């Protein structure tokens, strides 16, 4: 690879190699302030390569490769190289992670208690976590919750938050411009803009937290809260996990330990202010 970038995100290290300099320059700007992995050994490699050798110059198009490859990891135009790098990092994590039970979830922490926000794509968990991260909570991650199977702790994975469509304006109103990547318009997922988590999230990326609450948020409904039975939580979390099946009995035991330790609630919310108020209320109840 002609160009390389090394990144440490929480407990996971990446080497990103690219045939072109531009996507890596953009990535380096977005990830300014992140540490480099120690000793040069990386957990995962992501490669951004031309689909065919000559396409590096002629209508360039990025194919994502790495240690683990999915057949539908589609090539993207070079203008979306930043998105390709993000997809590549997600893909390597989702397929290759063996140390942690991986949940497709956002995580925030306050007073040593971590709240897991999970649910269907588009439920608003990423936006909600990003907002909480600017309002007194620590953003541990917007995409993957890493449950350490040995200790039962949640570990941070504070990669750049991937904001989509309406969430972009919400966060632009909240956060200084220097923490945003370029606006990527017209991607397969609509408009996307990446946002670097704040200094507190980066400074504490090595610090885990005890899981205290599991939330299943759903945006766009009248405000409502309901308790979720533990068997349903178990089922929904196996569906939210990318590596539960691969981990076998260790995954089963870890998930049961998590569910035994945390109450779980489904929350419907009409707007983010309501949701943030609810999460604050839950935090005070947990602390009481």
């Amino acid at each position, binding site marked *: 690879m002609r160009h390389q970038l090394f990144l440490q995100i929480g407990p996971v290290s990446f080497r990103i190699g690219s045939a072109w300099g531009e996507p890596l320059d953009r990535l380096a700007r977005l990830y300014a302030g992140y540490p480099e992995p120690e000793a040069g050994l990386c957990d995962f490699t992501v490669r951004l390569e031309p689909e065919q050798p000559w396409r590096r110059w002629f209508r360039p198009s990025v194919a994502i490769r790495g240690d683990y490859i999915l057949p539908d990891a589609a090539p993207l135009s070079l203008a979306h190289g930043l998105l390709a790098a993000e997809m590549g990092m997600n893909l390597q994590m989702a397929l290759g992670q063996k140390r942690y039970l991986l949940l497709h979830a956002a995580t925030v922490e306050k007073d040593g208690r971590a709240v897991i926000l999970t649910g269907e794509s588009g439920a608003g968990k990423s936006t909600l976590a990003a907002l909480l991260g600017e309002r007194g909570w620590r953003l541990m991650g917007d995409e993957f919750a890493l449950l350490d199977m040995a200790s039962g702790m949640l570990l941070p994975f504070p990669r750049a938050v991937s904001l989509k469509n309406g969430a972009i304006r919400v966060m632009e109103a909240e956060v200084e411009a220097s923490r945003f990547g370029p606006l990527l318009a017209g991607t397969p997922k609509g408009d996307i803009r990446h946002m670097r988590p704040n200094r507190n999230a980066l400074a504490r990326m090595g610090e885990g937290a005890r899981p205290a609450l599991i939330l299943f948020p759903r945006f766009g409904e009248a405000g409502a809260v309901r308790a979720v*039975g*533990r*068997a349903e*939580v*178990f*089922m929904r979390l*196996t569906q939210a996990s990318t590596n*539960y*099946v691969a981990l*076998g*009995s260790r995954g*089963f*035991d870890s998930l*049961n330990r998590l*569910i035994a330790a945390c109450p779980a609630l489904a929350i419907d919310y009409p707007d983010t202010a309501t949701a943030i108020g609810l999460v604050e209320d839950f935090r005070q109840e947990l602390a009481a």
Partner: protein
Amino acid sequence: MAGPRYIADPEETVRSVELDGLSVLFHEPSGMTHIVAAPAPEILEMLRAGPADAAELLRRLRARFEFEGNEAEAAIHARLDELEAAGLVRRA
């Protein structure tokens, strides 16, 4: 004529956790997780005492549990079919 006889894997190969009245089972031989309701865990327990056909299984269950009505036999056949499809019991 006696029906087919069924067996279940030994207890140490199936992890079981009860969650709010349902049981989640991790079946180590297949690596699959199942969520089951009563009487599935009880059927598995009874089959661990040795192979049994539906009639024998019902006798074992009746020794431990009360049954109401006379639909128990049909229900046992239905549950055995489901457990067999899930790979939690098999023909002896």
